[in-house]
């Protein structure tokens, strides 16, 4: 087997076409086909770029080792998944796998034990649970977090409190075809969630809550990986219901409606927007939850679907962000990593446990971004170190 055949295998594995690779590297499609036919050899920069693009080491490209193994690993992981992994999501899922492995290696190099969640504190849910079951489970989790009935402002912080890692990657923008996220039980990092950044902010939050349901209620010795796509089997339906209940408890909605004298039934979409913004969820989630809570008539539910929620919110005086209109994966760069990982990375570089260039290699970030992160004075070294090994439930307010 030659470099060319390894390049072809690594490309096909992630579902890239030769045209895609050519565009990313700034060469012609013919050149990519020449490389794969061993008629030309990529230069050093191109080899480095191909390794990054295919999420393998240059050594794997040269030797072929690791490409097949990785394929087998992925196939094994997804065997139990309810949803087939769409080709367009493969690079993002690979990045996720690479990230959790890299996180584990970094922690080992820094001598830090990641005390992530390896087993859920809640009993598993199986069979075909009802909406009421999901509500009770959401209440249990809120009680565990001492979160009361109000909005959960920072879901990443909730996950961090629980010892759950959240990573973001581009998984495709056509949500009918791709997945919104995934759950993975890593043997050392613990429960890890993947979120598609090519969704609106409300959908991303919903996905975190949805994957949280998988982590807390569906994980187990035989369930290591779950992908969340459009397939609505009982497990996925439960996770959806849980997410809705967790983000917008019916009692919390009732309290807001009473406090703002919105009446027994909501009759205007402006009130939906106010409630949506209060709970920081998508407009679609707010509509569904209001209908489930019988605060909205079926006719109003249908009628309000046609509202353009971001424009309407702006008209009502809410600050909106560009991210609500259009989602650019490039905006996520350093933000796709969990804060806890970034604190570890910063400490490791500051304490010379790894160099800045190594950190850049590990994360795929530029040296410029790493030096900015390391120079960030927002966290002091001692505080970073103290926080690195700790996970504890302290409550997130009411």
């Amino acid at each position, binding site marked *: 087997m030659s470099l060319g055949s390894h390049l072809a295998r690594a490309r096909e594995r992630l579902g890239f076409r030769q045209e895609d690779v050519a565009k990313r590297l700034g060469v012609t499609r013919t050149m990519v086909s020449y490389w794969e036919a061993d008629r030309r050899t990529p230069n050093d*920069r191109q080899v480095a770029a191909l390794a990054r693009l295919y999420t393998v080491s240059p*050594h794997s490209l040269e030797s072929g080792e690791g490409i097949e193994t990785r394929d087998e690993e992925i196939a094994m992981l997804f065997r139990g998944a309810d949803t087939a992994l769409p080709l367009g999501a493969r690079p993002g899922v690979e990045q996720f796998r690479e990230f959790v492995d890299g996180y584990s290696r970094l922690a080992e190099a820094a001598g830090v034990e990641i005390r992530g969640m390896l087993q859920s504190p809640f009993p598993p849910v199986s069979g075909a649970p009802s909406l009421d079951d999901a509500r009770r489970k959401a209440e249990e989790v809120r009680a565990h977090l001492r979160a009361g009935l109000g909005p959960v402002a920072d879901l990443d912080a909730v996950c961090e409190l629980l010892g759950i890692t959240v990573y973001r990657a581009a998984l495709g923008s056509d949500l009918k075809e791709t997945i919104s996220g995934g759950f993975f039980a890593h043997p050392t990092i613990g429960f890890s969630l993947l979120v598609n950044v090519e969704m609106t902010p409300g959908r991303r939050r919903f996905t975190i809550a949805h994957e949280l349901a998988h982590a807390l209620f569906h994980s187990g010795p035989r369930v290591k990986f779950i992908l969340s796509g459009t397939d609505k089997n009982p497990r996925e339906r439960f996770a959806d219901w849980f997410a809705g209940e967790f983000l917008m408890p019916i009692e919390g909605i009732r309290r807001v409606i009473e406090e703002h004298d919105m009446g027994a039934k909501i009759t205007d979409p402006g009130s939906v927007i106010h409630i949506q913004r209060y709970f920081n969820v998508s407009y679609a989630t707010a509509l569904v939850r209001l209908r489930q809570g019988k605060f909205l008539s079926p006719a109003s539910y249908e009628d309000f679907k046609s509202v353009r929620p971001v424009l309407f919110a702006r008209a009502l005086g809410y600050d909106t962000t560009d991210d609500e209109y259009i989602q650019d994966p490039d905006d996520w760069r350093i933000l796709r990593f969990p804060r806890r990982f970034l604190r570890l990375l910063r400490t490791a570089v500051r304490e010379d446990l790894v160099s800045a260039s190594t950190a850049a290699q590990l994360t795929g970030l530029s040296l410029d971004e790493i030096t900015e992160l390391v120079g960030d004075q927002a966290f002091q070294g001692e505080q970073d170190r103290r926080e690195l090994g700790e996970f504890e439930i302290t409550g997130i307010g009411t």
Partner: protein
Amino acid sequence: MSSRSPESEPESTVVDTVVLRYFLLVDRVDILFGVLGSPLVLSRIVFDPDDPRADELSMSEIVRSIHVQTRRASDPTRTREDREQARKNGERLSTVSELVAEGQMAVVDMTEEERRLFMGLTSVRETGEFGIRLPLGYGEAATLAVALGRDLVFATDDNDALRALDSIAPGHPRKRIRAILIEAADAGIITRAEANALHEEMRDLGFWDRESPFPDL
């Protein structure tokens, strides 16, 4: 790898991304030529004059830095001072193209033998053999491979790369930024005060070395 007798000092130097980047950023790359001679050797992963500047992931490391700084220069979420600094950084980094065109820097691709070492230095499985905890960055690994393959001085300030160098060839000549500034002052290219000032400027730009070239000054 080429063999070198302990007495002989290599005549040329291969420079990694970190060293090149900081001397470009303080606009004093002339110090590198004064101390290390010219042409300085660069790996194509560090800087590629033929870089088509397509996707960021495919860029050579200095070109990627230029790209990141240029983006920051027009990022409305940053302060005006940050944007101005980024614009200046991008401009200064861009001067590398002229230096290569003028022949003061020579860009090289790795030989087969050098590539083999590069593969080992960037492989998760083999890092333990080189005394490092995690795979090296591609630019550092390529620069180290070229330094050893062609018996060149290894100019770096990357501690992981230096750990790897020590495990492979402990006596191989290397140059760190602080040492280059000290030599420049000793050779009269700059004053000691200027050496300290440049080092401080580099630190303001993110360089991690905490000790000044002349701490007693």
